């Protein structure tokens, strides 16, 4: 009897195990571009998490002998003007890019969700005023907005995250609000209200979980654009300051002066940014197709 029960349990776990891999395989077949994108994002995350182990050198270690050295066996991607290893700086730069990307997406998403929920739930003059402010904020181009914010907050990692998250807030707030507007008329909300649930509880326990899909779509789409904006800000000298190795700043340091003598200083960090953003965008597209089938294409 006992052994038979064991057998049943064994076969059950096997089935679920296989089905997870099977599911992943199916997803990869259905969204080949999304699979490629997720793989690229996975590599960036891996580089960021294990930067200390993976990077061949200390990214801040200067070495006068290797100054502007061409790519070689010792330094695969060459050395920069201070003889620092470009490859190690790119690997450590993944940390900054991801920190800013994820940090600003979470912060902007959180603020936008709260504002959107409140607007959609309370309506009235509160909603009216917030909606007008959102209209106005959306009329400023993202980079201009981020530049102004970065300039007024001053350069630091935290401020860069804040500066990039602010332009996201109106987008999220708008999507959440329109979702709440249709959800609040649903029978299950009426039911919750009729059993005497408080407004806050209805908003967070019943309405919020139903707005998760568009929120995830927006968040994954934001990831790539946040990485790109961070690189642009750092390139212009308004992003993450020294000593953090940021991909955008690596390009601005090398830009004009070294374009002739050391093209690898321009090529490799650029490839890193492009690949990370490309991967995030591919992944975002697949996530959107998966969660919102109406919006195919």
């Amino acid at each position: 009897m006992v052994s038979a029960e064991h057998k049943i349990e064994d076969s059950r776990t096997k089935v679920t195990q296989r089905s997870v891999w099977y599911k992943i395989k199916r997803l990869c077949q259905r969204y080949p571009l999304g699979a490629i994108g997720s793989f690229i994002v996975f590599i960036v995350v891996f580089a960021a998490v294990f930067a200390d182990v993976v990077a061949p050198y200390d990214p801040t270690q200067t070495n006068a002998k290797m100054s502007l050295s061409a790519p070689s066996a010792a330094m695969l991607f060459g050395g920069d003007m201070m003889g620092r290893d470009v490859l190690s700086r790119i690997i450590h730069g993944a940390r900054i890019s991801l920190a800013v990307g994820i940090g600003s997406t979470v912060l902007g998403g959180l603020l936008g969700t709260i504002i959107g929920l409140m607007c959609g739930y309370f309506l009235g003059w509160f909603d009216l005023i917030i909606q007008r402010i959102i209209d106005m904020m959306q009329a400023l181009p993202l980079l201009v907005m981020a530049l102004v914010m970065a300039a007024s907050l001053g350069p630091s990692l935290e401020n860069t995250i804040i500066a990039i998250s602010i332009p996201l807030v109106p987008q999220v707030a708008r999507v959440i609000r329109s979702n709440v507007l249709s959800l609040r008329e649903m029978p299950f909300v009426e039911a919750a209200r009729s059993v005497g649930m408080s407004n806050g509880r209805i908003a967070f326990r019943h309405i919020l979980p139903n707005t998760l899909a568009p929120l995830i779509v927006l968040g994954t789409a934001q990831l790539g654009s946040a990485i790109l904006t961070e690189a642009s800000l750092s390139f212009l000298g308004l992003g993450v300051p020294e000593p953090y190795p940021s991909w955008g700043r690596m390009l601005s340091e090398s830009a004009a002066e070294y374009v002739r003598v050391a093209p690898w200083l321009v090529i490799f960090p650029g490839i890193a940014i492009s690949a990370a953003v490309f991967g995030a965008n591919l992944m975002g597209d697949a996530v959107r197709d998966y969660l919102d089938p109406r919006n195919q294409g």
Partner: protein
Amino acid sequence: MSAYVIQRVLLMFLTLLGMSVIIFVLLRLVPGNIVDIMFDSAGFVDPSEKATIEKELGLDLPIYQQYFDWITALLVGDLGFSFVSEMPAIDEIGPRIPITAKLAALSLFFSILFGLPLGVISAVRQNTALDYVLRIISLSGLSLPSFWLALLILMACVSYMGAIPIYTETPETLWDELLLYLLPSAAVGFRASALIMRLTRSSMLEVMRQDYIRTAMSKGATENAINYKHALRNAVLPVTTIIGIEAAFLIGGLIITETVFNIPGVAHFLVEAILMRDYPIVQSLVMFIAIIVVVINFLTDLAYAILDPRIRYS
């Protein structure tokens, strides 16, 4: 129609007034003022000197008074003085506008020239190898940082022509002038064309699922007639909005490209002003950008009515 236009123009002024408050507040988010920042970087603080400068710049006044002074001056066209050059801001900004406008127009021209037809092709050949290639190209257009693209173009110039095209105030012929703007606007236009292409594609796909397309097919219309006469005309409407928004948002790409190519346009000037903490210039320039965005949005809405006879604003 005219009532609608008047209503929209009034709303536009209200929006701009609100934006001026937002911009003003955003630039003063952090406690401490411009003088603090100036003295911080100088390293030493002489309190009396600080007070003099604050008074000179009007920073000792309460914040609502400062805003009121700024906005009333702005309404009569007085943009204040640059902290750095001490010239009137309008004299600094004015000559730079045509440079940026030419760049923006050329970039937009490129982006429509490539984005629209490629988007249609991608939709008509959905899920073929060509569609995948075009989609990857358009996605890479959204992923390549524009400053990197600009740097790569510069590198290509160096290796093929042995020199970087240097901006001159007075190009000799029209051809020289075009050449000068061509590379930077290609760098900016790539991203915009990728966006237009993506949107054209999804908009076309949406329209091609409609019943009237099936009707057209069943009555035996040729494929070209369906694609270009029935589908594209309807699909192009949402694309107009994106083109309008892109036209206004091109400034983001221009900021980067003008900096890399060292072109003395408005966008480059904004970055310089921000780096030098020249707040009167930053404030006025951001407001100027806001005005352009709002006006272009308004014009896009009007273009809607012209393109689609079904839309009649009343």
